[in-house]
Each structure stands twice: as C-alpha cells, then as structure tokens.
C-alpha cells in the first residue's frame, strides 16, 4: 500500500493512476497519524515551494520525519524532492527537511525558465548502484517541468543538464527523490516507480 500525501497543492490523479497501473494500491491522506504508520510514502508535488508550509503546520512534516527514521520508504516528486533539501529561494522562510545538503535555487541561465520538456538523466558515481534507477540506462529521457533546481551534493544519484548541471535524482537509504515526473515519463518513469514499489514491498515482507 502506497500512501500519497495530499497537501492541497496540485493534482494527485496522475501519480495515483501510475501506481494503479503498476498494480499497487494507493491511499491519499493528509492525516499525520496515517503518514506515520504508512508502509511507503510518496509526496507528489507541483507548484510553489511555499505550499509545503502546510505540511509543517498540519503536523505531516514531523510524521514524515518519524516515518523516515523508522525506515519507511519515502519518494518525493518534483517539489516533493526539493522539500528534502534545506529549503528553496522560491520561499526562503519555508523549511525543507534538510535530508540533503544545500538549497534549491532558480535556474541561472539564458535559456527559457521554466525548464519544460523531455531531458536526459545520467548517474553520478554514487548513483551507480541506485535502487530507483535499476534497469534505467543512462541518457534515458524523462519529463521535467520546474523553475527551481536542487544542487549536486552528496546523495545525488543522477543529474541533468539545462544550462547548468542539477540534481535529477537523490537517494539515501530509504529516502528517494526525483525532480522530474515519473508518472509522465512513459516506460522509463513507470520503471522508476516500479523500482520504488519493489523496494517498498520487499521491505514490508521482511
């Protein structure tokens, strides 16, 4: 059972649909108790970083931290991944989880911002044995749509270029994040979500 965290920003339908397609049951909640007790957590995210403020005020932020501490598999998507960093210049007063070092910043490029469309990911040295990217060749295409990007620091398992090199995937123990939208990235994206499900299911049967 995958628990999708609803924080009243954007649209969960696509993510939910992708898990359903993979034969995975999902439940949508904004209740801290259910988040704490989840078998696996997914935080989808679109829109402004400040929307994550709601997670702090509702108690979901603390519940997520407790779940991570207990080893619960946790996947952040887009802003959900950015939230795993210390914060973002998009909303400087909103705190992230600081599971990864550094903050997200707006793209510094002469290219168009937002970065919208299909771009390629490649593993970093520490991403060579990534669980999430199992069976996904380097230079696979995935779908992005974002204006802020996370820095390439320890824990980053894959990167992408758009005027500069930024974090496309992060992974440390039971915490995973993707800047792109796996639910919109065709077979590559479905493979990544399936890897997350496999990791979560393996863990829950142990």
């Amino acid at each position: 059972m995958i628990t999708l965290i609803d924080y009243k920003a954007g649209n969960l339908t696509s993510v939910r649909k992708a898990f359903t397609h993979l034969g995975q049951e999902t439940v949508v909640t904004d209740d801290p108790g259910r988040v704490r007790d989840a078998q696996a957590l997914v935080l989808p995210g679109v829109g402004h970083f400040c929307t994550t403020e709601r997670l702090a005020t509702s108690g979901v932020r603390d519940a997520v931290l407790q779940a991570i501490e207990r080893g619960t598999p946790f996947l952040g998507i887009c802003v959900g991944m950015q939230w795993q960093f210390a914060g973002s210049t998009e909303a400087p007063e909103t705190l992230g989880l600081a599971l990864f070092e550094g903050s997200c910043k707006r793209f510094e490029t002469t290219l168009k911002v937002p970065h919208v469309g299909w771009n390629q990911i490649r593993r970093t040295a520490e991403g060579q044995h990534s669980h999430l990217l199992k069976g996904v060749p380097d230079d696979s295409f995935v779908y992005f749509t974002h204006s802020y990007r996370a820095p390439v620091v320890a824990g980053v398992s894959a990167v992408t270029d758009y005027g500069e090199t930024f974090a496309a995937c992060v992974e440390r123990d039971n915490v995973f994040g993707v800047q792109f939208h796996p639910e919109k990235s065709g077979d590559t994206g479905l493979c990544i979500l399936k890897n997350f499900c496999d990791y979560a299911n393996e863990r829950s049967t142990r």
Partner: protein
Amino acid sequence: MSTGITKRIIACLDVTKGRVVKGVQFVDLIDAGDPAELAHLHATSGADEIVLLDITATSDARPILIDVVQRTARQLFVPFTVGGGVRSLDDAAAIFDAGADKISINSAAIKAPEIITEIADRFGSQAVIVAIDAKRKAGAAVSAEGTVPAEVYLAGGRIATGRDAVEWAREAESRGAGEILLTSMDCDGTRTGFDCPLTAAVAKAVNIPVIASGGAGSGDHFVDVFKAGCADAALAASIFHFGIHDVRELKAQLQREGIPVRLPC
C-alpha cells in the same frame, strides 16, 4: 554543456461529441477515430505529449466531456493536456481530477484573464496553457522590427477580438500561463507549413515555451518551425491520425537536421 532539453512533438486530438475529427481551417469535419485509442497509439509511437481539444464545447456552450478525458487519461503516461470549454476554476479542477496534467484555455482567458492566475495559483503555472488562435491581418506585412501583425480569434476561430497575438501572449505569461499554444488559423489544415514568422515573433516575446500549431504537412515543416520559428514544441493532428507520418521517422529526420529530440522513444 548541452542544453539537454529536446524539442517536443505533440499529437493533437480535436474532439467533438466524443470522437476525434479533423477539419480544414476549423470547418468541414471528418471522423478520425476514438480519442482513447488514438492517444495511446500516438504515445506508443513516439509522441512526446498528447493534447485533447473539445473543439465545439465553447460554441455549443457546454462543459467538456469529462468521461472522454477520464477514458483517455487512464492508460496515458506522457503529459496530457485538455482544452475546450474551460470557463472556471471548477471546470479546470474537474478536468485535472479526470487525469489531465495541463488545461488549455482560450476564449475564457480572453474574456476574463484573471482565470489564468486563479488556475495557476491553485494548480501551478506548469498546468496552464493559454491557447491563442491567430490570423494574420490582411495586407499587413512583417515590420522591420520583426513584429508580425496577427489578430486573436475566439470560439474555435469564430469571433475576432481585435487583440494582437504577440501582445496577448505577453499578457498571458505575466498572468501566470506556463506555456503558449499558438495556432495559425491561416495555415491550419492546409498542410503547407507552420507560420514560422508569427511563431518566432511570439517565441521571442515570451520566456515560456511556445507550441506551434497549424499547417504541418511534412517533416520539413517541423524542421522549419524549430529552426526559423524558434518553437519549443510543435503540434499536429491530421498528419498523425491518418498515418502519413510516423513520429519516430519524423524525429529521426529532425535529429539528422541537428534538432534535439527524444529518440529512442
């Protein structure tokens, strides 16, 4: 360092009464098939994105067919945009709920531009495409400054607004649109090529992606609209529905011309 981002090929399904149709310059519609089947077919044959437009929702003054959106979205795992008859935040919410990733607004945005901001605030700018149907002004030439006089039309090309296309694209961006879908009414359905000067004028005027639409008839037309037209994406309908073009073949041609595309796909 490469920019990495690829130029997108978007397959468009013009839908009326639950069926995909294709007309010439917005009239004379003929049946092209079932939307869910065609969307899946296009996605598996390499289209980067699918757009479904209910082309008679506005003129019939009825909401978009939600069950068609739902059915089409179910097995689609590439970005999916839905447009036609979106008049309110509630309309947009229902479409997102049915499985769309982006909505395209046209007439409603011109009549009450604040709807762009409302939807963007709730669902994010990435979810809001402002569609502009533009027609070149008769007798008006491209000026030395590169401006291309073109007028915005509403309701599937039925009503002239007096608004300038480039100026409206800029306003849409400032109000929170995440992308512009620019359709040339002069070129639509003619298969004689995109309106590259108009596309370039809009693409240079805004800092958000511009999707060119109207006029695709051959691979060379796509090459032109990405090079001369500075488009970020190009949309076509009939050439894909009737199998004149294989998307992979088209992408291979673009790649040979040095245009970055998602291949293999």
